[in-house]
């Protein structure tokens, strides 16, 4: 019984580590989407949220769920996000490229005049 308490505590701490890391990455990705200068660079920031942030949160919740159907459903959710997010990102990127949206290819300097015209 004493033993079980420590196992529970260890699982709680591991799951907290995963979930907090995931939340930090989700927030960092969201801030990146706001901060970065053009569409193509924002796409990379959105990818941070879709991959590491989402998977970390899902793994942390799976540890919380224990051995049950909840864990199986979370695993399916994780696999599904893992498989569809690159397809969706590529679809958006390809549509933007095909429609003629030009990517920013010069060095971006937010504080050095507006010579390279990064649309904020």
């Amino acid at each position, binding site marked *: 019984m004493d033993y079980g308490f420590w196992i529970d505590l260890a699982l709680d701490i591991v799951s907290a580590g995963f979930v907090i890391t995931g939340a930090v*990455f989700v927030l*960092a*990705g969201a*801030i*990146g989407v706001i*901060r*970065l*200068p*053009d569409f*193509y*660079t924002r*796409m*990379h*920031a959105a*990818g*941070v949220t879709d*991959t*590491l942030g989402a*998977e970390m949160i899902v793994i942390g919740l799976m540890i919380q769920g224990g051995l049950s*159907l909840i864990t*199986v*459903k979370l695993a*399916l959710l994780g696999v599904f996000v*893992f*498989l569809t*997010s*690159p*397809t969706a*990102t*590529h679809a958006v*990127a*390809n549509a933007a*490229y*095909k429609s003629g949206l030009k*990517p*920013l*290819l*010069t*060095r*971006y*300097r*937010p*504080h050095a005049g507006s010579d390279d015209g990064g649309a904020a």
Partner: protein
Amino acid sequence: MASRLFYGVLLALVLAVLWLLLSGYWFKPLLVGFGVFAVIVALVATARMGLLDGESVPFARLPQYLKYWGWLGAEIFKANIAVVRIAMAPDLNIKPVMTRVAVTAKSDMARTTYANSITLTPGTVTVEVEETGFLVHALTEEFADQDAFRDMERRSIEAVEGKKALEKPRGEA
């Protein structure tokens, strides 16, 4: 014919397990009956569309995929930290580049796996898919490393087509 039967049985098994896990009803005869009906309908539809092959039913190669995903996960972890560091830096010092990446993989599945792996790794996104190469947008020049792309392609071909596909000479379509 025999391989179609194999993939049909495999697909039926996977669909049945998926239905049981998602519904959670294991012992109610009526509901399990509906589940069996759903599996049969899905199976007949797949067979009628002629999709019973290794590409639509990729579950036979699950161990190889899991190994590849493990490696990809580590790559994604490293790239994520790099992207977050760039996006959070106070002066946002970035210089995006577009590069062309050569593709030698022949099967659609290997090409898709490769392109999706590039997109899934933060910092690089496949923008355009062409016959002999991908157009990749990278956040900075460090992400557009041709050797890293080649290594990723080698691993994705190994996961999808097997080790033998790597030793065959490539180039002819």
